[in-house]
Structures are given as structure tokens and as C-alpha cells.
């Protein structure tokens, strides 16, 4: 059987998560066939602004302008994690020197991406961000596309799941789920669940920052385990759990007050 080729889907060449994942995978001897990078253009801005509103501006400011400066020095966050693990890559384009193909596209669902995936025989894709993936890409993704979802499935589908789990008093349902994407919203087969303990007094922002290095480690570990046949996808049961949407800032603020009061 052919060795599986690993393809990474990337939301931005500057993504600290993607850079960290790729660097660790390469250090650990995992060959990356290609990194498919979604470029940031006006069309993407318009699409994401329609979905996220002002949140997008904050996201751009944090991820593209402030970057590492958005994090507390020595805090439990991705910057400290990178420092502790000697991860230095700041732009995925630098992996070209290590033989990794860098493919830039306007959208991860472009024909260019579909044709490229079609040209590879045995493959698995790791999604580190970049928007909704359509069926045409899913169909050409070989074994599938592994996503790191910021909630415990099947209960927590959708957006802002650490916030929702805390608001609903389900501290034991905070965490990540590594799963294969399918055409539904967070309904694909599950590879692994990683629970994350909430630290009393922690704000939502601190919790989210603590998620990022755990996401990187979980993506790397799960991909390696999958490639070594140490983990198998398990179907999600037909369940009544509903989708969560972006939490309104008033609710987030109220939740933060509750957390600060240590009321949970």
C-alpha cells in the first residue's frame, strides 16, 4: 500500500497554529506533500465580515497585525509553547526549502485545489483553518480531512463552544474533538476527544489562548496516530444535539463577570 501523503490546509501563511503544526510534523519525520494556503483577498474579507461582523476586525488585528504581541509573555499560550519547543517558522512559505509544495488559492474549494488533490493517490488532509469545505473537495480528499473542533462532540457543535459549555455549566464538556469532516456541521467520524480542564478564575480569553498549544499538539498526535493505524474513526451516533452559534458579546461579558466572581 502507498505511503499516505499528508496535505495541510492553511488559513493564512502567517498562522501560528499552522506554522507550529508543520514544523513539529517535519521535525518528527512526517513528510508533508503540500500546504494549501488560502490567500486573504477582498472577497474573503467580505464573506467573513458578513458572517463575523466586527469580530473579524478584532481577529485580523490580533492574528495579522499584533501576532505574537497579542499574547502574554510566558503565559499558557501558543507563543510560550513555540518558545519552549524551539519553533521558529513564522511563514509557511519557508517550508518550501524543505521540499514542501506551497499552493496558494483564493478559496480552499477552488478547482485548483480539487485538481491538485485528485492528482495525489493515497492521502490525508489536515485542516488548520480556512473556511467551510465543500463536497467537491471532501470527495477528493482521499481518507478525508481531519479537523480539530473546539468543542466536545457530539454535544457541542458550531461556534464559541468553550463559552457555551461554561455558560451551560458543563465544565466537563470543554475540550477538542479531532474528527473527519463531512458535509454536515461537525457531524463527521470522530478520531479523538481531548478534554481541557477549566482553571477557576480564568477568563474566556485566557482559556481560548490556552486552547491553542493543545490544539497544535492534538493535531500532530492524532495525525501521527492515524498514519500509524493507532486510531480509527468512529461514527457519531444519531443524536438530538443542536448547533451553537456565535455568542453575543453581552452574554460573553456576563459570563466573564460570573467567571471572575469564581461563581462556577
Amino acid at each position: 500500500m502507498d505511503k499516505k501523503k499528508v496535505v495541510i490546509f492553511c488559513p493564512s501563511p502567517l498562522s501560528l497554529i499552522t506554522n507550529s503544526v508543520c514544523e513539529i510534523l517535519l521535525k518528527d519525520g512526517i513528510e508533508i506533500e503540500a500546504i494549501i494556503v488560502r490567500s486573504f483577498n477582498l472577497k474573503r474579507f467580505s464573506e467573513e465580515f458578513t458572517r463575523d461582523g466586527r469580530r473579524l476586525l478584532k481577529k485580523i488585528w490580533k492574528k495579522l497585525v499584533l501576532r505574537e504581541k497579542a499574547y502574554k509573555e510566558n503565559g499558557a499560550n501558543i507563543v510560550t509553547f513555540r518558545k519552549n519547543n524551539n519553533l521558529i517558522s513564522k511563514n509557511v512559505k519557508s517550508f518550501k526549502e524543505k521540499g514542501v509544495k506551497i499552493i496558494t488559492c483564493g478559496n480552499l474549494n477552488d478547482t485548483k485545489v480539487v485538481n491538485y488533490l485528485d492528482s495525489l493517490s493515497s492521502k490525508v488532509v489536515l485542516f488548520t483553518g480556512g473556511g467551510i469545505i465543500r463536497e467537491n473537495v471532501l470527495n477528493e480528499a482521499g481518507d478525508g480531512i481531519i479537523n480539530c473542533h473546539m468543542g466536545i462532540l457530539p454535544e457541542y457543535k458550531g461556534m464559541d463552544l468553550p463559552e457555551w459549555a461554561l455558560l451551560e455549566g458543563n465544565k466537563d464538556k470543554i475540550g477538542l474533538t479531532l474528527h473527519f469532516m463531512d458535509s454536515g456541521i461537525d457531524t463527521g467520524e470522530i478520531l479523538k476527544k481531548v478534554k481541557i480542564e477549566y482553571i477557576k478564575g480564568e477568563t474566556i480569553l485566557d482559556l481560548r489562548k490556552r486552547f491553542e498549544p493543545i490544539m497544535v499538539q492534538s493535531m500532530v498526535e492524532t495525525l501521527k496516530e492515524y498514519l500509524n493505524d493507532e486510531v480509527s474513526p468512529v461514527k457519531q451516533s444519531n443524536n438530538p444535539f443542536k448547533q451553537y452559534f456565535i455568542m453575543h458579546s453581552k452574554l460573553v461579558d456576563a459570563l466573564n463577570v460570573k467567571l471572575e466572581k469564581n461563581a462556577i
Partner: protein
Amino acid sequence: MTKELEKYIRNNLESLIQSDGYPLLFFESISKQVFEIETSINFEKQSNLEAFSFFKDVRKQNIQTLRILNYKGELDNLELFWVEKILRFCEVRYRSLLVLGKQQGWDKNEIIEFYVLISSLFFEFFEKNKDYKYLNIGIKLLDLPWLKLPSNFPYPYCNVLYKRNLILEKNALIKIKNG
């Protein structure tokens, strides 16, 4: 806010009572506390929920039916499905609800009336079921600039419901903050 609402209700009581049963749940839950009077909700005036299959087919009478059934604790699976479907529609199309209403040929007041009723359904559903997803979308709807009612809005019951929803929002947020 409560005093302001009380004052508004007192000043408009007559027209509210004549407004075809629309204040509904607000009257049941608030009038008893504030005015110590019983009001008659027209529970018979329900419209057939199976008659619509797309969100664009939903009318204010359907929303009123859902509100009544929620109040009575009688929402069946089909109706719960519709409450959820309405939530999903409002979340996904949140930024284009006004435009979509206009595309249906409704005037702005009709659109406002419709979404005031929908946000009322969401707040009431939250009050009854403590499902925060409904509080979330209720707050989002109240935040829409075009849904902020002018004082001369032609349907007094809408002003009442809108103001009541603001109170429910405020109370719910205080409860969350206090744990």
C-alpha cells in the same frame, strides 16, 4: 425600565386590550403582577403550523401560535422543530433579515412587528426552557438597529413587547453575572 414599562402600559392599556390578543403572554405574566388583573388570552386563535414549510411562509399568526403553545408547555415535536428552525434562520441570516423581509413585499413596520414577535418567542422560550441559545438570538435581534422601535410605532403592543424583552434581557444577564 420596569417603571417606564408600567407607565407605558398604563397609558396605553385600552389600545393594548383591543389589540386582538397579541400582547398575550406579557399580559398573563406581567399584568397579574403589576396590575393584579386577569386578562384573557385567545388560546383558540391558532394557525396551522403544518401549513408552512419554509421560513418565508411563516406569518405572525404562526409565531403567536408557537408563543401560546410554549406558554402552555404544549409544543410538540413539529412545533419544537419549527422554533429551532426559526432560530437557525435568524442566526444564519441575521445581517440580512430586513432585506429579506423587504423582498417578501413587507413594509418596514410589518417587518419590525414580525421580528418583535419572533424575539418575544425566543425570550419566552428561554424563560420556559432555560436554553441559552434562545436568549442569545433574542439579544442579537434586540441589538439590530432597525428593530429599535420609534416611540410613535403604530402597534402599541409591539412597543410593550419590545420593552418587556429588554427587561427580560437585562434580568437574564444579571442572573448570569450573579451565577
